[in-house]
């Protein structure tokens, strides 16, 4: 693990945020935050509640537009990202409170994840034959592979609104994977899960990273998970970056300990 993290840290930068400041009226959510995500690493963003972690992800995929700062993605400088651009350029995302299409089946949710890669127009869609059907089948194959990978074959036809929370989280990961992302943003993928579900989720995250080489940025409160999974950790507190290092170093960092536990005296 140590070797891998050293290699990754030396690697090419996939995405870098530079001096990001985000305010909502008088509230400063992010204050001059800079860090980078290397290609192929698992990057954790941690911090106490309200530290600005989710805001950071929202800035990265373009939901929020920061007042100051820039984002550099695959060498392109962007003052602001927008969700459509992010999606087209291979940034996928899961949400803290599952944001699935509740009325649709698992299969349809994952197929929707392929929306950008499907391009047969209205005419063929109306007929649902020929090229439209071929395209549908081609993407169904990819989606079935993901269903196999995540071991959710049994719930293929179930509307996701009826699924238990842990499975919904898994389907949401599946939908993000269906986009074949280069950068996967996971917002608390393990909240509300029992130990077994957490272990499954960790396994999926590691396999996605290991097999497909997907770069992952994740927010998580379970420190055990964070320290085990991630190559590097960035720590936010009250919208500021207070630490940015490999897990072992972050664990010992005085500022981090103070942020989580408070300062004595």
């Amino acid at each position, binding site marked *: 693990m140590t070797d891998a993290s050293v290699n990754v840290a030396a690697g090419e930068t996939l995405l870098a945020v530079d001096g990001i400041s985000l305010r909502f009226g008088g509230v400063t959510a992010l204050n001059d935050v800079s860090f980078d995500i290397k290609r192929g690493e698992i990057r954790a963003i941690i911090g106490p509640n309200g530290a600005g972690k989710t805001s950071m992800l929202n800035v990265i995929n373009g939901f929020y537009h920061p007042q100051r700062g820039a984002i550099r993605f695959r060498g392109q400088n962007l003052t602001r990202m927008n969700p459509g651009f992010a999606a087209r350029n291979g940034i996928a995302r899961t949400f803290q409170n599952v944001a699935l299409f509740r009325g649709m089946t698992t299969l349809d949710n994952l197929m929707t994840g392929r929306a*950008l890669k499907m391009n047969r127009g*209205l005419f063929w869609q109306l*007929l649902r034959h020929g090229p439209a059907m071929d395209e549908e089948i081609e993407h169904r194959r990819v989606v079935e592979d993901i269903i196999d990978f995540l071991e959710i074959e049994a719930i293929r036809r179930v509307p996701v609104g009826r699924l238990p929370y842990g499975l919904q989280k898994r389907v949401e990961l599946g939908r993000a994977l269906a986009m074949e992302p280069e950068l996967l943003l996971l917002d608390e993928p393990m909240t509300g899960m029992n130990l077994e579900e957490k272990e499954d989720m960790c396994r999926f995250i590691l396999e996605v990273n290991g097999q497909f080489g997907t770069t992952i940025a994740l927010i998580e409160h379970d420190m055990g998970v964070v320290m085990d999974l991630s190559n590097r950790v960035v720590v936010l507190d009250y919208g500021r970056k207070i630490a940015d290092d490999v897990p072992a170093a972050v664990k010992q960092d005085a500022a981090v300990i103070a942020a989580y536990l408070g300062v004595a005296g």
Partner: protein
Amino acid sequence: MLYREVGQYHTNYRADMRIFPILQDRIGILVILAIAFLGVPLIGGSFFLDVVATPFLIYALAAIGLNLLTGYTGLLSLGTGGFMGIGAYTCYKLTTWFPGVDIVVWILAGGLAAAAVGALFGLPSLRIKGFYLLVATLAAQFFLQWAFERIPWLYNNNISGTIEVPTRTLFGLPITGATATPVTRYEVALCIVVALTWLASNLVHGRIGRSWMAVRDMDIAAELIGIKLLPTKLLSFAISSYLCGVAGAMLVFLWYGSAEPTVFSIDLSFTILFMVIIGGLGSLLGAFLGAALIHVLPIVLRGVPPALGLNIASSTVEHLNLMIVGALIILFLVAEPFGLARLWQTGKQKLRVWPFPY
């Protein structure tokens, strides 16, 4: 017992992705089509065709149109009556200008104008949702009805202010106007409705249908996946209005024979909306069931007292009718808030495992 899918395995995705993957369903739909095309015209008299069957088809088509918008894309609209009017008036103008062209072509073309107007009035949907969008589409409804009344050009400067359907033939057979038989008009309506339902069903099962439902269920996540909200919503408005427009043209040309602007009032919008809600949001079958409940059931009930030999004044029958239909609507919605289509699904599920509970 008969409704079992045991032993029906799909070994490729094409078979698995059929709209009716179960054999019994495919047989069922063929039987229904055979009855609709052959049985109904042979058995039903001209009263039945003109009062029950043809209007049922037309309402069902309009309900499918609104269902694509409200049930699939999650956008509320009360402009249905107006959009149906656009279809009717466009068809009327076109057939006045080009009387030689087949009327079916103009009925289908009438929908195109409705689609354009629908997309235009759909523009606010990017910013507003729910009840607020409902109010915005209400503006469309009132504006369009005003236009139908106040712009004489639309009804060819007719003194009466109504559109009168001229006689038009297809292969020498009159299909609109006074000389067209109920059977011909029914068959033409049936062909159009079956064809458009088939296309709509294809659409909702593919990429476009999924993107509509994604926008309905969670628009933020849909945007994140790369679905562009505005084009998706406008396409939904356009296609929904297209179907409503065609239904409106059929309403005048294949059923009423002539129409005043008040035909396309807010009442019509509400009628279609109720059909969609009671039939089942997000279900094409629901559009048919809703149209049946709201249009056909009152007619059936009206015939019950005479059939039983009861001598009740017709106004009393009418009042009883309203009460019974109203009570039934409440009953159905209490039993299944997601509409008749869901009730049907639940029933089918029960049938599959019968006689066991699960």
